[in-house]
């Protein structure tokens, strides 16, 4: 068996039957072997797009996503996506071709030290230098990508190892890292704090979905009836119908969520890392709250805020052991009132009015299938999606959280559609972000994937413009994108059906047409560039001092 055949054998053994990538010189033996392999390869139009597609696949399924690229520029084009996967803890195995071992270190054509480049943006990375190590390393890469807190693993494989013969390898389970387990004493201590608290709030992060602990979380919230809020990555974990669910907290969190957290005397933080976009001014974040921090990663405990009790381990085991034995009815009533006072308000889509993006997105959410997968880019539209759309599960909301990578939405939607071919997949994009991976329209056309694209076009780099307006004295520097191409014509060039709307009276019909169209479809929505995202917590400000409207 050649090295290239061995790679594909390992992929099949690991259940990776669908992969994304882009060929090139140093990975050609693997692409040659693909022709005779049951592995299905999806050709994207840029390595970054291919890796985002693998991320979309992984995030829609909680399985390991796989991406393949060549050496040199192929490898460097992957780096942004690797960093994205690292910061959002996405299980990924990325295979790069490398120049032949004899040429390594000689500045050969398309040679780059991808191992060195990857160190700070991967959970782990490896370079195969002996044929006999190839399959054991690949198996280990999958184990590392999955175990504990997931993340991306890079495997760099010289071309001569792909071409040469590798010894037979019997697959056997890898030694995985032993995961921490919360002690009985710690759980009792957490339960005591929960019982003693007067104003507890549950703060839900992306770890719940990644631990496949959504049922355990919902059961805990049903048993305890505690008020709860979510991070961007945690959206979909809690049942959005729950009367004590307050939505997203943080810089663009909903007012009720931020106010409840600020008033709390106990925060139960589950699978979250107290990101700066969540806490605002850290010294004034939930100033009276004790902290119970539940996570799989010991490095997150005490990193940003001291935890009174920390529970390290698998959420599937910890959540059923947590309980709250005292009633919080007065606090719950206060929360329900707060939710009522600060609830979102939406506009009717009346002819002759400008389109209101939050109202459009809420309608899109109502019209979409309950298990639709929504992917988005980064910026104002991303926050509107988080604030105004509802998700039945965290695998139904794919958003670049930690790295905040523009250009994420379209390729992630392609990966999600490959993972879930029968589900509705919608990419909500900003006009700036869409242009960053616009080439992936070619991938949509090639595979005729029925991804629905909604471009919220305010002809601006909207979030940066908003900050320039609010915090830089309206000095608008390089945020005018009014020379965007006509997006419908762009779609037509790729053979993709499209429509353009600018009047609120057109919203209902346009959304219905979008969702009912059998193939890929692009809806270009023209917005007033003056619209901003509210609330916003200004920099170095406590969350309860958020601005809920323009001042």
């Amino acid at each position, binding site marked *: 068996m050649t090295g290239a055949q061995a790679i594909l054998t390992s992929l099949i053994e690991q259940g990776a039957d669908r992969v994304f990538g882009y060929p090139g010189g140093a990975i050609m033996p693997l692409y040659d072997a693909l022709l005779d392999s049951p592995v299905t390869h999806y050709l994207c139009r840029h390595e970054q797009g291919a890796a985002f597609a693998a991320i979309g696949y992984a995030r829609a399924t909680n399985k390991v996503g796989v991406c393949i690229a060549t050496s040199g520029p192929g490898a460097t084009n992957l780096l942004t996506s690797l960093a994205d996967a690292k910061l959002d803890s996405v299980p990924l195995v990325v295979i790069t071709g490398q120049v032949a071992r004899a040429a390594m270190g000689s500045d050969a054509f398309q040679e780059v030290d991808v191992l060195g480049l990857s160190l700070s943006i991967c959970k782990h990375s490896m370079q195969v230098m002996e044929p006999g190590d190839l399959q054991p390393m690949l198996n280990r890469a999958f184990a590392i990508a999955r175990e504990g807190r997931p993340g991306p693993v890079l495997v760099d494989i010289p071309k001569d190892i792909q071409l040469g013969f590798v010894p037979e390898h019997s697959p056997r389970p890898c030694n995985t890292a032993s995961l921490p387990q919360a002690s009985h004493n710690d759980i009792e201590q957490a339960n005591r704090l929960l019982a003693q608290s007067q104003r507890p709030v549950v703060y839900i992060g992306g770890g719940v979905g990644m631990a496949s602990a959504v049922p355990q979380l919902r059961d805990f919230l049903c048993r305890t009836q505690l008020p709860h809020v979510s991070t961007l990555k945690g959206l979909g974990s809690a049942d959005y119908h729950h009367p004590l669910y307050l939505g997203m907290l943080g810089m663009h969190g909903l007012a009720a969520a931020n106010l409840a957290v600020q008033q709390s005397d106990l925060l139960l933080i589950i699978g979250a890392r107290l990101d700066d976009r969540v806490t605002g001014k850290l010294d004034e974040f939930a100033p009276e709250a004790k902290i119970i921090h539940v996570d799989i990663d010991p*490095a997150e*405990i005490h990193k940003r805020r001291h935890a009174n009790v920390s529970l390290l381990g698998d959420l599937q085991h910890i959540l059923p052991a947590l309980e709250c034995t005292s009633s919080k009815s007065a606090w719950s009533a206060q929360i329900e009132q707060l939710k009522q006072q600060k609830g979102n308000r939406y506009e009717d889509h009346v002819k002759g009015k400008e389109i209101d993006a939050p109202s459009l997105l809420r309608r899109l959410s109502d019209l979409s299938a309950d298990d639709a997968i929504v992917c988005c880019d980064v910026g104002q539209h991303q926050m509107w999606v988080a604030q105004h759309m509802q998700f039945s599960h965290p695998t139904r909301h794919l958003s670049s959280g930690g790295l905040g990578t523009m250009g994420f939405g379209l390729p992630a939607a392609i990966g999600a559609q490959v993972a879930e071919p029968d589900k509705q997949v919608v990419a909500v994009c900003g006009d700036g972000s869409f242009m960053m991976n616009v080439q992936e329209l070619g991938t949509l056309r090639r595979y005729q994937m029925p991804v629905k694209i909604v471009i919220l076009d305010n002809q601006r780099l909207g979030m940066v413009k908003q900050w320039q307006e609010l915090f830089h004295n309206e000095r608008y520097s390089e945020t005018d994108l009014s020379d965007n191409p006509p997006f419908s014509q762009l779609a037509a060039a790729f053979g993709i059906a499209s429509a353009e709307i600018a009047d609120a009276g057109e919203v209902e019909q346009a959304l219905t047409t979008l969702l009912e169209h059998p193939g890929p479809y692009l809806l270009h929505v023209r917005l007033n560039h003056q619209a901003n995202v509210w609330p916003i917590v200004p920099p170095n400000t406590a969350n309860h001092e958020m601005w809920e409207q323009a001042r």
Partner: protein
Amino acid sequence: MTYDLELLLSDQPAALERVLQTARYRGFKVRQLQMRQRGSGLQLSMQVSGPQPINILTTQLHKLYDLASLNIEQTLPQTA
């Protein structure tokens, strides 16, 4: 504060770079460094200093797959 760390690493490509990169990124300066082969692994004696609690660094070092063991030998006040 200044901390002396003793690390045992597996002898893998980039193992030393990972340790140094982690220390730098987490806000610690490497003051002294000595590395030698020990059996099939690498023994690293490293003195670092930084304003943050050392667990900010050690919890990250423990995540490195090339790390076999880590001990904090002693803690010294930081010198100018």
